[in-house]
């Protein structure tokens, strides 16, 4: 996947507009983290690294972080709170009880 970037292409006139309702680049400039009122937190003691949460997350809010263990390539989910909108899909879909728990947002 390309790096997240704040690049945003805005069209001016009809002639610069793509014919369909499509962004001219990624939507990464749209920091959906500002919508969040519930914060998912991953408990890495319980997390098995199955990456179900990463697959289901509707925003670029769970990054798959590569690491090595016993000479094997593995991944772990890391939540990017700039984008996490607190929709709760990850903790509904996570197959491991308690691997993702939620904390209230706020001070």
């Amino acid at each position: 996947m390309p790096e997240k970037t704040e690049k945003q292409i805005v069209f001016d006139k009809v002639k610069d507009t793509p014919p369909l309702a499509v962004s001219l680049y990624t939507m990464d400039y749209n920091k959906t983290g500002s919508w969040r009122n519930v914060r998912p937190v991953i408990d890495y003691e319980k997390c098995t690294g199955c990456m179900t949460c990463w697959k289901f997350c509707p925003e670029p809010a769970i990054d798959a972080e590569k690491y090595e263990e016993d000479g094997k390539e593995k991944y772990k989910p890391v939540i990017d709170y700039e984008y996490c909108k607190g929709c709760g899909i990850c903790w509904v879909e996570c197959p491991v009880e308690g691997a993702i728990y939620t904390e209230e947002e706020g001070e």
Partner: protein
Amino acid sequence: MRKVMIGNHALSYGAKISRAQVIPAYPITPQTEVVELLSEMCANGEMDAKFIKVESEHSAMTASIGASATGARVFTATSAQGLALMHEVLHWAVGARTPIVMGNINRAMAPPWTIWTEQTDSLAQRDTGWMQLYAQNSQEVLDSVIQAYKVAEAVQIPAMVILAAFVLSHTSEAVELPEQGKVDEFLPPYEPEYRIDPANPHAFGGLTGPDGYFELRYQIQKAIEDALPKWDEVGAEFGEVFGRKYGLIETYKVEDAKNLIISSATLASTARTAVDTLREKGEKVGLLRIRIFRPFPSAQIRSILSSVDRAVVVDRNISFGASGIFYQEVKAAVYNEKNPPPIFGVIAGIGGRDVTKKDIIDIYEDIMRMDEPKSDIIWKGVRL
């Protein structure tokens, strides 16, 4: 090669010969044979396509949009309640500019449950932006699927190929199957400029405010306007390659006609035979069949109507609280003309009630006795 087939199978063979790649579909009477044959051909390898079984028509259209957005050529088919269930995503298909081709079998809407023909199901989708083509026989159905892809993909607007339930969907006719090689040349693979591609990410249909939405809508209107000449061009090119020419409208004996019968789909075929009989009786009458309803061929209709004394539109549909829908559109097309002829609106054949050649002759003779249209609806065939 000629093959005997029902109208529904003409849709299936049209999709096959156009090399549709994804077919998400849900069966509904009287459309079932369309998708039955397609699923068979996908299963036995005759078609190199993915058949997606879905749980509803809403999902059929949603899957069609997703598949088309990846750049696949997509076909689906439905009817009546199924089309109505798709309504929300019909708008989406247009906004997403996915050139899906869909067969719709015109069936009257419930309640009461019914399966016989009427055009109100598809005409109620008039303002979604889908192009609409009303076919009159199985050959035209098959040929129109191929043409519909060519036009739809050029302007990136989806298109419906529409046929009358039973009268056409279940009637067997000999149909010429075009050669695959020639179709491949006529209709090259679909290559959209924007498609879902993980290597080149875009957001599709993302939130757009008043600063961007208007331009997108403007572009849809421009694209569907561009499709008007395109239907004639593609229909003429089809004629050169395959020997059967098509256009936005079809005229019959209009050159010296004083009076005009206007209709669509299979009703127009019946009207053609009525014109022959009326001509034998010395009537100067012609037929205008509206083949493409969206985009609406206003200019073509105006030019034919400019030389006649009166016209009657025969509609197998109704917009409750107004009138027949083709009638409204024809009237609107000529309203700003200097001296438009009086136009009479007849509603006939609702819910599949038979409309015979004699009925059309009666309609014609009745309106010839009237001085002017007194109301927007002249009912034909309803037991009052």
